[in-house]
Every structure is written in C-alpha cells, then in structure tokens.
C-alpha cells in the first residue's frame, strides 16, 4: 500500500513502513499518521526527531530505555517513561513511532 503525498507516490512495505528511508519528509510522516486516523503534535515530533537522529548515528532505533531517558531529559522527568510514550503512540513507541519516523520496523522478539 503505497502512500501518496502532494501528488507523489512513495513505496511502503506490507505494514506501511517506508521502503526507502530517503523518501521521508515531515509531510510523509503526517500523511502516515493520517492513514492511522491520528495527527502529530509537537510531542510526537520530539520523539520522531530523536528517533531519526539516533538512527542516523547507530543504524537502528533506540532501545526503549535509551528513548525514555532522552525524552525525559528533553521534556521533563514526568515524560521519561514508557507509559507516556504509549499515550503518544498507542500501538507501541518502538513500532508506531519508527513508522512515522521513516525507520524500518524493529524485528525480533519485541
């Protein structure tokens, strides 16, 4: 199911993750969220931007503790926990947030 943004079509895998990481843009992320019936606010963007920075450096999404710690530092200790992240991304921060950030889906026993 390819995704269409501003008349351009982007290829995705079976689960809606971008096939080419370089296709990502903020518009694409917002369009993906819209498909899921949700919209992205500044709190979502904090997470998405961190994921992309981390991926750039390590070629993998951050582990949940790395992510919660980073978000806690940025947004305050009350938000540095997975409960907050699940409120933002009900399908799971690792999977749903990775999708909007244009990263591949984490695989394995997770």
């Amino acid at each position, binding site marked *: 199911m390819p995704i269409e943004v501003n008349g351009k079509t982007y290829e995705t895998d079976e*689960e809606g993750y971008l096939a080419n990481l370089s296709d990502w843009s903020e518009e694409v992320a917002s369009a993906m969220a819209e498909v899921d019936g949700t919209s992205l606010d500044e709190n979502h963007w904090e997470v998405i931007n961190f994921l992309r920075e981390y991926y750039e450096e390590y070629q*993998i999404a951050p582990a949940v503790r790395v992510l919660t710690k980073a978000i806690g530092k940025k947004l305050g200790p009350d938000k540095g926990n997975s409960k907050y992240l699940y409120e933002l991304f009900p399908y799971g921060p690792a999977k749903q947030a990775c999708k909007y950030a244009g990263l591949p889906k984490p695989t394995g*026993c997770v």
Partner: protein
Amino acid sequence: MADFETPEVKEYLDMPGLKPDAMSHSQPFVSRDEFQEPLGFPGELVDDWQNVAIAKLGELLDKNRGLQVFMDACVKCGACTDKCHYFHGTSDPRNMPVARQDLLRSVYRRYFTWPGRLFPKLVGAQDLTEEVLDQWYSYFHQCSECRRCSVYCPYGIDTAEVTMATREIMNAVGKGQKYSNEIIGKVFKIGNNLGLPQPALQDTLEGLEEEVKEDTGVDVRYPLDEKGAEVLLVTPSADFFAEPHVDGLIGYGKVFHQAGISWTLSSHASEAANFGLFIGSPENMRKIALRVREAAEELGVKRIVFGECGHAWRVAYSFLNTLAGPFDFLDPRYPVPQHICEVTHDLIQRGALTLDKSANDHRRVTFHDSCNVARASRMGDTPGGQFTIPREILRAVCNHYYDMPPDTIGEATFCCGGGGGLLTDDLMELRVKGALPRMQALRQVADEEGVTHLAAICAICKSQFAKVLPYYGFEMDQIVSVHQLVSDAIVLDPAR
C-alpha cells in the same frame, strides 16, 4: 483495537463448539527473495514446486526417522484434540493437532504409501495441490511448536516436528515466512534478531550502567566484548531493547556483580534466540549456534550462560554440543551451557546473595512456564528442575507467590500464544485468541489469590503478554522478567 473478537474468558476451559474454516484466512506475510537467499532458500515459489516439495518430504523422511514414525503412527484416537491453545482460542477444527498434522500426513500417504498411491480416497490421501500448499502455509503457522499436545499423545508423536518439517518443505519451494526469515538474516549479518550493531549495544549498555548507578548508587557493570571474562552471557536481543525484558538484563548484571563473577556480553553472539529451530532448518540452526562458539573462543571465556529465552534454552540445552561442540576449551566444572536461573539459584542455595523479599511486597506473583523450557529441556541436576528452580528463585525474592492451576503449568503449561515464530503483528488475531487458556488461568489466580504479576523466562512470552494482556482486561505491565524480581530484591554491596 482490531477487527476480530477477543474470546470470552469463562470459569473453565470448555471444549469449544466447532467453527470450520474460522481461521483459514490467517496467514503471515510471505518472505521475499532478499530474506530467502541468505538462508539458502529460493526467492519465490519455484516452477515445479510440487516435485520439489515431494522430493524434500522424501529426503526428510529418510533423514529423520522420527518424522517417518510420526507420519505412520497416528491412530486418530483424539487425545490431542482439546490440548491446543489455538484450538481453544479459535474453535477451528483444523487447529486440533491431529487435523493440522493430517494436512501433511494426507500428502505423505498419497506419495509414500501403497494404499495412498492406489486408492487415495479410501485412505484419506490427497494430491499436493496449490490449495493444500495454501492450507499448509496457513495452519502450520497456527502451531507454535509448543508440544503440549505431544504430552498427551499415547504414541508420543512430536507434533512440533511435523510443523517444522512442513515449514522446511515450504522454504525449499520458496514459500517462506517473512518474520522468521528476515530475522535469521539479521543474525547472520549483524549478530542479533533486532539488528543492533556493536555501537548501539555499547551505547545501550552504558545507559544501563548509568541507570543502575542512579537507582542504587552502586557501579554495576554491563560489559561488552571483554576478553578474559569468566562468563559469556548470551541473551535474547530483546533484553537490550524492550520492556519488561531489559529489567531482567539489569538483574543478571546485579547477580554477577554480587557473586563477584566477571562476565561479558558479545556483539558477535548478541542473540540467544535461534529461529533456525522454528523453521525446521538444521543448517541455519547450526550457523546461528556456531556464533556462540566463535564468541566464546574469541573472548577466551570459561563458561557460557544463557539469559531468559525459552526456545534458546532448548537449542542450548539439547543441541548446542551437537551443533557447535565440543566445548572442551571451557571449564569442565560447570555444565555447558548454564541457564541464568541455574546460576542465580545456585548462588541463593549457597547463601551468596542477600535478598530483601519485602522489596517485592507490592506484587503477588505467579510463574508462566515457557513451553520450550518446560517440555524440551531441564535445569539443574534433578528431573523437573526446570519447574522447581525458577519457582524457588521467585519464592526467595517474593513473599507472595502462587501457582496457576496444575493442568496449566509445568509439563502441561499452555503456550503464551506467540511462540514458534508467530510473534508478528500480521498474526495478531491468532496471538490474541491463542492466549485464551493462559489468560483464563491467570484470571483464576488473579481473582482467587489477588495475583498481580506474571513472571516469565522467555523474551517471546514477555513481548506476547505485554501485547495481549490488555485484550483480556489486564495491564501490559503485569508481565515481568524473573530476574526483574531478583533485581528488585537483591541487596547490592558497593565494595565488589
């Protein structure tokens, strides 16, 4: 949450009313050439797939005498019919283990027995058609290879072997499962199921050291690739990445710290899981297992210890020596390999750990026996050690421990619903439905004993429960690692 109904939890687990074809639509994503080729399988369905499949079945029958017996021995007595969690959850009669196996057995009869060749209809033999292949793909991905039904089979037919053989045949014709095969490729390329490269592991572990320091004031180390350590710990990569797994990893580190045992993780063997087992591929299983040996040699360790991972322990306990041995370079005073629960249990027995049980007083705990540990391995040196050792650890670290009903634990344990290569989002309906028997048992101890937490020693079980508990009215954080409870109770000594 989804377009299917969560089964109703009743007071008892009844024999469900049959709903033929209720789950015939359930299929995981099919693998692609990029995931097939690193494993040595064709990238797509090969042209003469019928011939290839039948030849492969013939080869497996020759190589695996067990499979030959399992094909011939079933007398359709029905003892297995109501033993499968997927049957209970889905009501689909093809999920009765005997019926699922017969999808392969009927083809075996057609091509490998005289009556089936001459009078197929009389003996329930059928041609291998595209429709049959489709049914194989659907229903052999509705078996988690948990082997509960085998416990009740009077002939001892190992149904998991039938599933593994059929998946191996499907891979041989180019119809593999994306989830398992993509993961195996990542182990070959990067070293673990998640694809965590060395720098990411390093960064994650440094973060854990900081976290434990902040929490406890003690410098507990989480070393990576340290040559000369005594113990190589091989653990599922979910332990680095996910919750509640990571709290178990924190616990292993605290145990080693307190015991004064030097240890290390390895970026080369940064995965305990061995999905080669799930797809019935000895070659791929061996390649994954060899990484453990290579890491142990490279790092010069004296012992190998496995973290909390169910099927990994089956492969480690039952097959590691055959796949990657001999391990004559390790310290002969210790079993090869050891389970982290054996290490912790031994230390508790010797009084080497100070434990403050009251740290877990806010929890009332039960234990979920993971299928591969329960029915395909052992711990310690007495029969049933795989059941008693984790429970003795839990009783040593918690004041409130309660077992679930006896026909749902120990050897009779029910699968979490996500084992055997089925822990993937494209099988969510199956996973939720298959969790029914475990959720029923948990509901019972929650109501009767006020149990609040389910402890497990398997990465798949932990992820599966975190996902499915909310479908049954529980919270996702009611699943915990056994070593998370150890971690909370252990009294750390800064001097070590």
